[in-house]
Every structure is written in C-alpha cells, then in structure tokens.
C-alpha cells in the first residue's frame, strides 16, 4: 500500500478548515428573522407623488415548538409605509418591524386604482430587480384602495392572502376572470403592441357592515366581537381592469370580461344562462372550449376571425310550461342561443376595450405580425391609432352533448 503523503494531507486539512472561515461571506437569515410577505398592496398619492405600500406579513398567532398553526386565527399583520419610490417605501416598511422582508412567498400583488392610473412601469421595475419575486404571482387591481382590500378580515385558510389567492384561482376556473400573472404583465409591457389586462377586485359595500344577530363564523377561538359577519363575502372579483400603455384606462364588467376571455382563449370552464321561446331559462356548464383567433386582413381595416367551439352540459332547465317536451330542435335552439351569447359578449368586449379604451387586449398586433411581418413593419407605427378599425368576426359553434340525468322528454299530461 502506498503511504499517504503527509504534506498533501496537511494541505487538504488546511484547505477544509480554511474555507470554513469563508462562511460569513454568505449572509444567512434564519426563518424566525424573516417577515414572510404574503400579499402586497400598492397605492399612489398623486398630491405627494409617493407610493403607499401595504404588506401583509405572516405572523403566527398560535405557535411554538409544537409548530401548530391555528387556522382559525388571522395569522397576519399589516404594515404600511410610504416612499417616493417603491424601494423607498419597502425600506421604510422594514424599519417598522424587526425582521428582514422576504418576498419569496408573496401570493398576490394588489395595485390600487391610483397606482394603476399612474402607471405600472415603476411598480414592475421594482419587482423585476428583486430576485425573490415570483413570476407567477397573481395580480389584482383594486377598485379603490389596495390597503383596504388587504385589511379586510378573511377567516378562510391560514391567512387572508391565501383566501385571496384561492378566490383568484376559483374565479379563473369558473371563467370569471382572465388568468393573469406577473409574467403576463411584464410580457405585455415589453411587447410593442399588447396591453395589460388585470382582474379587478372590490369591496362589496352591501355586506361590509351588518347589524347584530348575524351568524358569527370563523371568528377567533374564545370569541370575538359579537355581531361580526362572515367577512368572506365582503370582497369580490369585479370585472377586469384594462390598461393602455401601462396606465389604467378603464374597467370591463362581468359580461365584457367573459367576452375578453373568449377572445383570448382563456375560458376553460364557465356557466352560461340563457332562454329560448320554449324554455324559460336554462343553465349550461361549458366544460370544453376550443378557440382560435386568426388575422384575416393585415391592412387597415384589420379583420380577425374568432373560431370557437363549445362543449356544454345542461345543468338546470326551467320550461315554459309543463306541456313542453324537449326535442332535437330545442337542443339546437339552446346551442344557437349559446353561440349568440358568446358573439355578443365578444362584441361588447371589443367595443369597450379596443374601441373605447384603445387597448390591444387580444394580441391583435402580434397576430398581424405573425401572419405578415412585412405588412406589420409598414403599419406598426400607426397601429395603435388604427385599433378602432379592428373588426372581429365570431364563428361560434356549440354542442350540448351532455344532457344530465334528469329526463326532460316527458311532460305531464
């Protein structure tokens, strides 16, 4: 056996122990020294030209070595601060509590209306330079103040931001809002033509306060204030905010939002309600949608063709009277009604978002570029002014292939 070289051994040991002195070069932050931000609210004060940042931070109300997180408690605290820029505002927030702010688990960013009108670029620039920020963070625009949304007591999940995130996911799933993440926003801002759309959220004024006698649900163990409502309903998704050149231009209501979603192909599943002359009302659940938006004319006036095919399942039907017996014609009429609704919603979305707000919300410019780069090169400088000349022809087909378990083919005699 070869004898080990003493010098080599000594050098190796020296290296190993020597490198241990470098450990201080990497700053470690323990978990109990981190303020885990779950939601960020950004408002802007025009008069003072300053940002107001509200951070919802995870603060376990029941904790210790046993690590149990009490789900019925809020487990969150709000820190508000101001600054000329986002960075300054966040830095001031650090001074108000003793922990290092950690954005890696931020679930949602709520941009207040004032901040949205002032422009997204300054906000985006802050998150772009932050290596902790997630690209898949959900984005919302608050109709009003973002800090009010964050301060709302929501006793669902471990903390309120979790409830907000779930609300977002649920709304997307059910075709109420478009799927918009921080990545979509930065892509749109960098793109030459695309404009940003962000789901909007608002406080529901009817259920914000209530009198005594209301059922108390989910309050802190051991009792809270008597007469406090279940606050889950006090905030709700409220359409879509449309931006032009990074600044808030206006809002789309629920129908227009869905029309926008048809255009962008964002609908996975949704519920539609309609009626025919023989059916007082019926609801269908659209469970599959195939959408294709294509450019047909690359010169002004631009025309686009939306081809959409819906597959739907009947959920409930209320017939005009008991004598009505559903037949094939009725199903066809229902399908045609669905198609008409989709066309109407698309048209509403186009007229509001594209004509009125002048925003390219459905990648019209990119579609033209994709079809004919040379034509796009000629027209791109004028395109934003020519948006009002965009026409979208919808060719929608629907197929109700699941009629449910209830027999509707036999009426009462």
């Amino acid at each position, binding site marked *: 056996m070869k004898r080990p070289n003493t010098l080599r051994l000594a050098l190796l040991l020296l290296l190993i122990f020597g*490198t241990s002195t*470098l450990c201080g*070069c990497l*700053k470690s932050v323990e978990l109990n020294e981190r303020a885990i931000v779950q939601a960020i609210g950004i408002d802007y004060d025009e008069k003072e030209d300053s940002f107001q940042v509200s951070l919802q931070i995870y603060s376990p109300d029941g904790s210790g070595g046993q690590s149990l997180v009490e789900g019925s408690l809020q487990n969150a605290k709000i820190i508000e601060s101001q600054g000329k820029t986002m960075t300054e505002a966040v830095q001031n927030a650090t001074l108000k509590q003793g922990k290092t702010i950690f954005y890696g688990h931020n679930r949602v960013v709520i941009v207040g209306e004032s901040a949205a009108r002032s422009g997204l670029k300054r906000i985006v620039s802050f998150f772009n330079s932050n*290596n902790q920020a997630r690209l898949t963070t959900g984005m919302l625009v608050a109709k009003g103040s973002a800090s009010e949304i964050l301060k709302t007591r929501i006793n669902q999940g471990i903390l309120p931001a979790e409830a907000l995130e779930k609300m977002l996911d649920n709304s997307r799933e059910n075709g109420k809002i478009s799927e918009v993440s921080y990545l979509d926003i930065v*892509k749109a801002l960098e793109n030459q033509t695309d404009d940003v759309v962000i789901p909007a959220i608002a406080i529901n004024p009817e259920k914000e306060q209530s009198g005594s006698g209301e059922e108390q649900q989910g309050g802190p163990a051991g009792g809270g204030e008597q007469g406090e409502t279940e606050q889950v309903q006090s905030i709700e998704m409220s359409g879509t905010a449309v931006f032009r050149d990074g600044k808030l231009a206006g809002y789309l209501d629920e129908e227009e939002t869905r029309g926008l979603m048809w255009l962008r192909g964002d609908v996975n599943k949704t519920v539609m309600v309609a009626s025919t002359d023989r059916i007082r009302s019926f609801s269908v659940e659209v469970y599959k949608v195939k959408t294709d938006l294509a450019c047909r004319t690359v010169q002004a006036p631009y025309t686009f063709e939306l081809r959409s095919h819906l597959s739907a399942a009947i959920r409930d039907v209320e017939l005009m009277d008991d004598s009505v017996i559903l037949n094939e014609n009725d199903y066809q009429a229902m399908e045609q009604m669905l198609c008409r609704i989709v066309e109407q919603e698309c048209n509403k979305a186009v007229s509001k978002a594209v004509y009125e707000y002048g925003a390219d919300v459905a990648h019209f410019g990119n579609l033209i570029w994709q079809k004919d780069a040379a034509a796009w090169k000629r027209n791109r400088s004028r395109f934003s002014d020519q948006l009002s000349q965009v026409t979208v022809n919808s060719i929608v087909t629907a197929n109700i292939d699941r009629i449910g378990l209830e027999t509707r083919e036999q009426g009462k005699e």
Partner: protein
Amino acid sequence: MQKQISVWQFVLLLYICRIFSTMTYAPAMGVGSGGVSVLISWVLSLGIGILVLLPALWLHSMSGDKNVVMLSLSVWRRLGVGIALCYFVYTMMTAVSTFAHFEFFMTNAIFPQSSTLFFIITMWIAAVYASSMGLEAIARTGAVVFAAFLVSFGFIVFASLGQVDLVELKLPLDNIWKEVGASAYEAFSRNAEFVVVLLLLPHIKGNLKKGVLAFLCMLVVTSEIIAFLILTVLGDYSATQTLPYYTLSSAAEFSIFQRLDALHMTVWVAIALVKIALYLFLSVECLQMLFPEKHKKAVSVGCCLLLFVLVLPFCYSRTAFDGLFRAFSSGIPSILLVIVFPLLIGAAMKIKKGRAEHETTKHTSVGAASAADLRN
C-alpha cells in the same frame, strides 16, 4: 497514450460543457427582431458544426493516438510550441470565462448580497480538486451530471409547456437570413467544445464520427427546445433578461415544487464545476507537453494558481468580462484553433510523409542502382 474514455462518455462530457453556455443563451431579440430566426439558426449550426469538425476528423484518421498539439510537436517542434501555447491560452481563458459566467449568475440571481471572493475561492478549490482526479473521473462525473440535467430539463420543459403561447413566434422584421447567419456564426464562435474534440482525440475509444454527430444533434435539439420555450413562454420579456433560461425555470412551477430555479441552479453549479475542471485539465495537459516529466507537477500547480489569478479581474470588472465575451464571440480563436491549425498541421504531416516516402524511394532506388552496379 492510453484510451481512457468511451466515445459516449466523450459525447456526454462535450454536451454537458456546451449546455452550460446554452443555458445562459439569450435569443437575440431587440426591437424589430423575431424569434423564429433563432430557431432556424440552430438547425444551420448543425451543418456548420459538421463542416468545422472535418479537419479534426481528418487529423484523427491520420493519427488516432495523438492530439493536435502532439501532432504539431511531432511535425516541427517550434511550430508545436506555439500551437501548444495557443491551445493552452484558449482552454485557460475558457475556464476563466466559465468561471466568470458562473460567478455572475450566483451573485446576480441567487445570492445578490454575497461576496464574489467566496464563490471564486470555493469553486476554485473544487475545480482544482476535480481536475486532479483525472479525465476518467471528469468524464464519469459528467455522465452522472448529464442524468441530473436531463431530469431538471424535463421538469422545466414539462412545467413550462402549459404557458407556451405560439403567438410569440414571429418572423423578424428585417432580413431573416442575416439574423439567422449571425446567430449561427455566434453558435459556432462560442462553441469551445470544438477545441475539446481536437485535444481529447487520443483519449477516446470508439467511433469518433458517430460521437461527434451525436453531440451536434443532441445540442441542436436541446437548444431548439430551450429557444422555443424562452421565446414562447417569456415572449418579449426574454429580451430584457440576461439569463432567460433561469427566468424560465423560475416561472415554471410544478405541483409542490414551488420554483424550479433552485433545481436549475444546482444542476448549473455541477455543470460549471465539470466544465471548469475539464478545461483546467486540458490546459495543464497542453502546457505539460512542453516540459519534461519531472516538471509536470510544478506545471500543474502553476496552472491552478494562474487560473485563480486570471479569474479575479474578470469577476470584478464588468468591462473585462464583456471584453472576454466579445473576444470569444468574434470567432477568430475558434477559426484559428478549430480550422486553420488542424488544416496546417494535417498538410504539414502529409508533406512530411510524402518527403519521407520520397526519401525512402530514393534510397531504395539508389540502393538498387548500387546493387546493379556491383553485379555488373
């Protein structure tokens, strides 16, 4: 020289080293550019790669157990010394460049508040140890790291597929072929692995032609997938990112794995270590050929120290880093070392062989004439 690694180990090693640079690839997109030219350029680079490596294969067919430096020394010592130094400088600077890229990534993306010197020292120690293990260990480790890369790549691709938006694929507004050509040339000029082929020739067992073709095909396929995903998932946002593949991995979320950028980072660190170790090993080998056996250890130690000294300015100075990047991207080193030198050496060997045969024929005919005279 003993053939130490199989051709498939060689292919995986080359691939892993090349992937390091491909993962920092930024599709050239500015205002007016389209991403499709990038996708086309990678296909073109396959053809360029095959053409560019023909001199290497020609040299290999002439002398399978010597690399380009050994051949140059055998043709003409002085020429060989110059060529050896050129390859030494190239491999050393590639190691330095890899180092600088690695440090840039760590201090900008992962640990923005940490010390540069920490990463330099730790990686340097690791690379010196790894290169001292020898080519076999580097190749075997490369194969394992390749498997880890495949897993990580698969995860990232799978998680990103749901975010692909084909509307981002657009032709460039200006001359597409100019952009395609520029991208393909850049792919060639920055591909230091072509030089590795020339230097590792005597160490490889197996069909080299098959191996080289497999390497180029694997590279093109991977690069196409990366470019496609960057373009379609990140869109125009990728143009603002220095490390778009890293950004892509941070956008890819998969079930309970919140972010896949950590997976990307771990694989990248491993790949960086393998690449730096390989190039350090090759640079030491190039220089050792110029010295007698008793000085080889000193040469090895000297090269390791030189690496440390060279890395410092390129990690601390952005200007130096950009300058080094531009030097590689110019393509002049690659053209010289991959095409010109092998052709020169091959031609010189042919001439030398021809002269030797002529001399032999001359002696034989003189001998025969003398024998005939004697008989007469």
